[in-house]
Structure formats: structure tokens, C-alpha cells
């Protein structure tokens, strides 16, 4: 097992280098130099200042050297300073990670505890009313634009019924609450964002779960388990589900970039101070160091997510552990 994990870790290195290369390439797509954004808007900036800025960012050196320097700073988590307020990019990112990670984990949890039983039951009762209802839900979930769903729910629960807050993650009097009230307050603020960010994934997982279960249901080892007279519950949950779960883990790993991307949308709508909103603000103000930092970090988190998915897969399925 450890050998497998180490091998997977090493295979991530070229991916990481590739990610940084593309990010670097993207930033150099910009017409003109990154430093000109700071100076173009300000006609008072003299040529000297421009040259000094170019030197600070190493823009007077060849691209390869620039990339090398940037990469070496990157592995030490040195993303430079934000154009906007001159704070370290890493500090700005660091304080926002818990919020975004927390919401995404909650939404993953919701996806799993609702999506898996939904798909399994739909497959077991395939053709039934429940199965058809699930299929309709899946289509709706896929077609629902996150931001529209968010607006509709804000309108219903926040404005018409007035039972849920529609922006931020805590109330103004948060500081004066006791622990139980604080948790309740956070929960009330998080219900809508978590639900909204989970809907797409929920549809996807229940659909794949249903497909996987339908295939496994007819396989020979399930027949063998049934022939041995095992109770139906054991057959389904210990034998069939375990096998049907393998592709689900991989799909979950692959859906991580989507979750992170989605956080830009729902964090902007619900005014949640997380990585997504930070990224949106960085894009709006063209804060290049921050954009680069978040782009690389988002990709690293995705890589880690894939790694965890692979390890989970190897844990569930010994065949993966021992293959090449």
C-alpha cells in the first residue's frame, strides 16, 4: 500500500510542473507585460519606475529564466504580493482556505449521503416510480444553472418566507453568541450555499451509482452470493455496493475541479468570503499575482483530491494496489 502511494506521489510531479508551465504561459498571453497593468493606468509613472518594476518582477530576463525563478519561489509558497493591497498572496489565500474547503467538504458529504442511496435504490427498483422520479431529478439537476437555483432559493427562503439569511456566513452579532448559537448561526447561513453547490454533483453521483449498481446487480458474484443463501441486505451492501463504488470514487476525484470552479459562482452570489470570491475579485481587479497563486493552488488541491481518490480506490480494490 505504502509503495503504491509513493509511486502515485511521484507520478504527480510531472503533472505539477505541467500545471505551473500552463499557468505561466497563460499569464504571458497578456498583451504587453504584467507590470504595464500597474503603470498603464497611471500616466504619471515614469520610464524609470517602469524599468524598476520590470526588474522587480524579473521581466528583463528571458522567459525561461523568469519561469525558473517563479517556479523556485512557488515551491516555497512565495506567490509574491497582491497588486491591490500589497499583502502577501499566500497570506490572503491561507485565511480563506478553511471556508471554501469546509463548504466543499460539506457539499461532498451531502452528495455522498444522499446520492449513493438514491442511485442504489433506483437501481434495485429499476422501472419503478421511484426510479423514474430519480431519473427526472437527475435531468433537472444537470440542467439547473447553479446561479439561477441560488437566486430562486434566495427569493423563496430569504425574501418571501424570510427564514434563511441570504448573504455572508455569519450574522452581525456573531461575536456575542455562545457556542451553540454560533454553530446554529453558521448552519443557517450555510444551508443554501451547501445545497446549491451540491445539486449538480448529487445528480451526477446518483446517476453513476444507478448505472454501476445495475451492472453489478447482474454479475456472477452476486448470483453466487445469492446461491449461498446470504441475506439480501448483505448481498447488496457488502458485495454489490462495494464493487459499484469503485467508479464512483474516481468520478468524485474528477469532479473536484468543478466543485472549486463552482465556488466562484456561489461564493459571489452568497457573498461568502472564500477562495472563489477572492478569485473573482482578483479577476475583476486584474490582480495577477493573486490570480496565478489561486490558479496553481486550485490545481494542487485538485491533484491532491485525485490522489486521495486513487488511494481510496486502492484501499477498496486490492486489484489496483497490486497492478504494476
Amino acid at each position: 500500500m505504502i509503495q503504491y502511494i509513493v509511486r502515485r506521489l511521484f507520478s504527480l510531479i510531472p503533472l505539477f510542473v505541467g500545471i505551473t508551465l500552463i499557468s505561466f504561459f497563460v499569464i504571458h498571453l497578456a498583451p504587453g507585460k504584467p507590470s504595464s497593468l500597474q503603470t498603464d493606468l497611471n500616466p504619471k509613472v515614469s520610464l524609470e519606475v517602469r524599468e524598476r518594476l520590470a526588474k522587480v518582477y524579473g521581466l528583463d530576463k528571458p522567459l525561461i529564466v523568469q519561469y525558473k525563478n517563479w517556479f523556485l519561489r512557488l515551491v516555497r509558497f512565495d506567490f509574491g504580493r497582491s497588486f491591490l493591497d500589497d499583502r502577501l498572496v499566500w497570506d490572503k489565500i491561507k485565511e480563506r482556505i478553511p471556508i471554501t474547503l469546509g463548504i466543499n467538504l460539506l457539499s461532498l458529504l451531502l452528495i455522498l449521503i444522499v446520492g449513493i442511496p438514491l442511485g442504489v435504490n433506483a437501481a434495485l427498483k429499476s422501472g419503478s416510480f421511484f426510479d423514474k422520479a430519480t431519473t427526472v431529478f437527475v435531468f433537472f439537476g444537470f440542467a439547473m444553472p447553479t446561479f439561477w437555483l441560488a437566486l430562486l432559493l434566495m427569493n423563496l427562503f430569504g425574501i418571501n418566507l424570510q427564514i434563511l439569511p441570504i448573504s455572508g456566513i455569519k450574522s452581525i452579532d456573531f461575536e456575542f453568541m455562545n457556542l451553540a448559537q454560533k454553530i446554529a448561526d453558521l448552519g443557517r447561513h450555510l444551508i443554501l450555499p451547501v445545497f446549491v453547490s451540491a445539486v449538480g454533483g448529487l445528480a451526477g453521483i446518483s446517476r453513476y451509482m444507478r448505472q454501476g449498481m445495475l451492472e453489478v446487480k447482474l454479475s456472477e458474484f452476486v448470483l453466487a452470493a445469492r446461491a449461498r443463501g446470504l441475506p439480501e441486505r448483505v448481498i447488496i451492501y457488502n458485495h454489490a455496493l462495494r464493487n459499484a463504488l469503485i467508479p464512483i470514487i474516481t468520478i468524485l476525484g474528477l469532479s473536484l475541479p468543478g466543485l472549486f470552479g463552482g465556488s466562484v459562482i456561489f461564493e459571489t452570489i452568497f457573498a461568502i468570503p472564500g477562495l472563489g470570491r477572492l478569485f473573482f475579485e482578483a479577476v475583476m481587479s486584474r490582480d495577477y499575482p493573486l490570480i496565478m497563486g489561486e490558479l496553481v493552488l486550485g490545481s494542487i488541491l485538485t491533484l491532491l483530491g485525485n490522489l486521495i481518490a486513487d488511494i481510496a480506490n486502492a484501499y477498496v480494490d486490492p486489484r489496483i494496489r497490486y497492478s504494476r
Partner: protein
Amino acid sequence: MKIFRNIYNNKLVFFGSIIILLLVFIAIFAPWLSRYDPSDIDLNNILAGPSFKNILGTDSLGRDLLSRIMFGAKVSLKVGFIAVGISTIIGIFIGSIAGFFGRWLDSLLMRFVDLMLCFPTFFLILSVIAILEPSITNIMIIIGLTSWMGIARIVRSQVLSLKEREFIQAAKVIGASNARIIIRHLLPNALGPIIVSAVLGMAYAILVESSLSFLGLGVQPPTPSWGNILIEAKATLGIAWWLTLFPGLAIFITILGFDILGEGLRNWFKNYE
């Protein structure tokens, strides 16, 4: 015919195509179908609810919502078609080369595909837009350049499974060039899955475009797009429900249409084999 026997799947294809055809019709004939110009401002009639005069109501500048949604259809479909065109061409090109030539070229290209799949695509798209100005052309190109990986994988696996078959060997024996084998013999046999993922790709592209426009980083006003109409919906939440409901419904129905069509076609091609 055998194809028409599977009623359920045909129902999907049927309803999906109806929705899409209707949409294409509206997009093409929007200037003749709509009663108002989508950018005609009428300050005496702002935020009016649905009525006989303005069937879906008006926005905060008194512009007719129905007309704006109809013209928005054009933008969405255009972005979808061109973005998917770009991603399909790239995907076919990379996938068939990787599958056909195999060896180091295959592993190199597939590592590149893995790499692209690792990027949080929406972050990447936003970064590029931050650098190049947000415009319809840029959006189409960027969505196309960041969504070809699925098609590349599908084409590659199809090519891999087909290239050892007898008819390909026969083509090689009579001296057909590699390009000819790929274009004339391999790709036509992979057409089904390519069409399915192109149709589903339309849904994806339209969703991304509307999300970008909603964030203000997509189609720029005054050009109406479903996403940028919804910007105003957020500002008038609780005041003008029609501004929230109808543009969102348009996006929802469109994506649903492409999803249904894609799903139906997938089953259709599966049965056809």
C-alpha cells in the same frame, strides 16, 4: 425499422430535438418574432410585470424581457455551436493521433489530457478572460480550448479498439495513407460517440457562457444574453420575480434539451451497434 422500436429512447431524441429546433428557430427569427427592439429603453414602463403589452414584463430600463430573451437565444446558441466546434476539432485531432500512432506520442498526449483535466477549468477560463477582454469571440475560443479533453479520450479509445480490426489492415495492405485511414475508415466508425459528446458539450458551453455573463465576465451589455439579464435579477430580488424566473428558465430548458437529446442519442447509438 429496428431503430423506431425503442420508443423510450426515441422519445428522448424526439423531445430533445423539438426543444433545440424551436430554439434555433427563435434565435434565427428573433428580429421578426419579437415585438420590440431588445435595447429600446422605455423609462415610463420600468419593472412592469407581465402584461398583454409586455408578455414577460420589462427590466429596470423598461426594455421588453421577452425580446431580450429571444435575442439572448442567438448569443447562447452561437457560443455553444462555435465553442463545441473548436473543442470537437481539437479533440478529434488529438484523440485520433494518440490512438493511431500510439507509443510515446500517445503517452505524451494523454499526459497532456490528464494535465488539462486537473485544472479547475472555470478558474482557468476566468484567468484567461481577466487577461484578454471579455467578448463573445474570446469566450467561444476559451470554452473551446478548455473542453476538448473528453472528446479526445473518447476518440482515442474508439481508434484503439478499431485499429486492429481486419478492415483497417485491409486498408493498410492496399497502401492507404495514415491520414486516409484515420479520416475515411476510423473516424466514421467513431461518429456516434463524437456526436453524443458534442451535443452534451453544447449544454456545457451554454452553461459556462451564462455563468460567465452572470458574473459580468462574459457577454457584455447592451448585447442581451441570458446570463447578463440575470445580473439585474439579483439586484431586483423580491421586486421583480419575472426577471429571475424567465431568463433562468430559458437557460434551464435549453440545457435540458441538449441533455435529453444527448442521452437519447447515446442510447440510440448503443442499440444501433
